[in-house]
């Protein structure tokens, strides 16, 4: 589904990613791990179009997506969450999800843009109800998203991605468990697994190795912008290069 070929990114004299290659197969959960500064978030920014490549290629379903603006990447079917929590804090939980679901009209002509003017962005949706119920936020749906606890906001951010229109096939999760209590982490893990069973593909950046081990089919390890290991979680865990990257010699 997603192919990263020889991906390179520089920030001035710093080589953040140095010819990294790996693949994410459809229906898999791939973990992207590594010590701080190893280039994980940079990789997600490159995939989602927030940063530009200095070398290499990124292909999604066989088409190059590097060079596309972020909104165009999203419309191809790639959604993401952020390490530093991002949602629309002034909107209610439900309004966040409704906003994500509404059609993206501005890519088209003036007529369709203006056609969205008289429409009022509310209305019942069984799909939104079901999602809120699933993560236990149904009773919070009328509350301002910014007023929820950090863990609940993380869940809203996750639901936001799932509600994107068009529905994302590949979801990039940037440290979904960071700062979240263990109960919420378990909810999140269950939801990721649930949506994988429904055909979604995930690329997860995470520092919590237990989450990675519980969740992922394959793990890619980065260190200083290079891929140092790739494979099933149990195998990668024993890899001497990984041990060295995390714990030193």
């Amino acid at each position, binding site marked *: 589904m997603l192919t990263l070929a020889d991906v390179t990114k520089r920030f001035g004299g710093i080589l953040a990613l140095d010819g990294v290659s790996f693949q994410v197969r459809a229906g898999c959960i791939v973990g992207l791990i590594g010590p701080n500064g190893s280039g994980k978030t940079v990789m997600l920014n490159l995939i989602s179009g927030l940063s530009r490549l200095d070398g290499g290629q990124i292909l999604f379903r066989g088409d190059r997506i590097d060079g596309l603006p972020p*909104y165009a990447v999203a419309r191809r079917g790639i959604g993401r969450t952020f390490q530093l929590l991002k949602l629309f804090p002034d909107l209610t939980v439900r309004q966040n999800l409704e906003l994500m679901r509404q059609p993206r009209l501005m890519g088209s002509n003036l007529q369709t843009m203006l056609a969205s003017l008289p429409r009022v*962005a509310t209305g019942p949706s069984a799909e939104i109800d079901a999602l809120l119920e699933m993560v236990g936020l149904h009773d919070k749906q009328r509350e301002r998203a910014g007023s929820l606890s950090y863990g609940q906001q993380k869940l809203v951010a996750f639901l936001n991605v799932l509600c994107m229109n068009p529905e994302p096939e590949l979801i990039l999760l940037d440290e979904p468990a960071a700062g979240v209590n263990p109960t919420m982490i378990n909810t999140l893990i269950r939801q990721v697994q649930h949506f994988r069973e429904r055909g979604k593909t995930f690329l997860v950046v995470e520092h919590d190795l237990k989450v990675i081990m519980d969740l992922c089919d394959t793990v890619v390890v980065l260190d200083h912008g290079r891929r140092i290991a790739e494979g099933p979680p149990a195998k990668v865990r024993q890899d001497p290069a990984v041990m060295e990257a995390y714990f030193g010699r």
Partner: protein
Amino acid sequence: MARRSWQALPLVGLLAAGVLYPRLLPGDYFLHLGIVVSLYIILTSSLNLIMGITGQFAIAHAAFYGVGAYGSILLVTRLGVPYWWAWAAGILLAGIAALIIGASTLHLKGAYLAICTFAFSELFRLLLDNWISLTNGANGIIIRFVPPPIGIPGLFRFDLGSRRSYYYLMFTFALVTVWFVRRLARSDLGRVLGAIRQDETLALTAGFDTRRYKLLAFTVGSMYAGLAGATYAPYLSYIAPDLFDVNETIYIMMIMMIGGIRSIWGPVWGSILLVSLPQALDITPLLRMIAYGLVLILVMIRMPDGLAGFLDRLVSRLRPGGTWFGEKA
């Protein structure tokens, strides 16, 4: 249904107040006051669309107001274009100017956007000041014509030789502007504009082409400023560069902030207070600026959501849980 009826109440109230105003407070002075209040409702509501709802810190609103005024008046006086055609062209010119300025600056944020749009505003003023053969420079242009009547035969007619007709025309445009901004804010499009204000990166990665949305809001808001200029100029009988400089933008921003930024009704309350109070108190321009400064400080400290929010809190004591005047975009 009942909820929707309640929500429409302020709009109906504004309509009723506007229609009855000349009967309740007759005389040229009050009509003039009504015209100026209506002018600032248009200017402030349209700036609220750009700055309050979409979160674009652009400070060139008065320049677009000037493009509408100068554009329409020059077309009439220099080329002999019939006024209402020139009026439409003035609005269109403001839109084109906004499209060009917006396309080249709206990728910027915060102070950078403010500086760039400020530069445009100053450039526009300098152009008016120095292109004497066209604009008569700092001396301005005296407008010696009265716009021909406009209306729909058998339905209504604005005869702009009368101040009362001018009031009703300006008030109609003010009402349309408030209605439009309210409608837009509650639409799918408006919700995206609000999302861009809250987190543009998230909106981008969610698939919204934020630059186009921002450009649309900037252009539409500036066209309303152009409308204000093109309509108000013949009433004023005189236009000059200093009417459209950055101080005017700051004045409009002040009305927006005191009225309640992002509030649908803030521009209405702000315009009524800031336009009519100094006139009623009959204070000099210097004292007026001091009074504005004091009011702004007071509002920022005591009423961060502006007059509209304050009034809403008062009203919600009568109707708990409801919102009338503090209706936010």
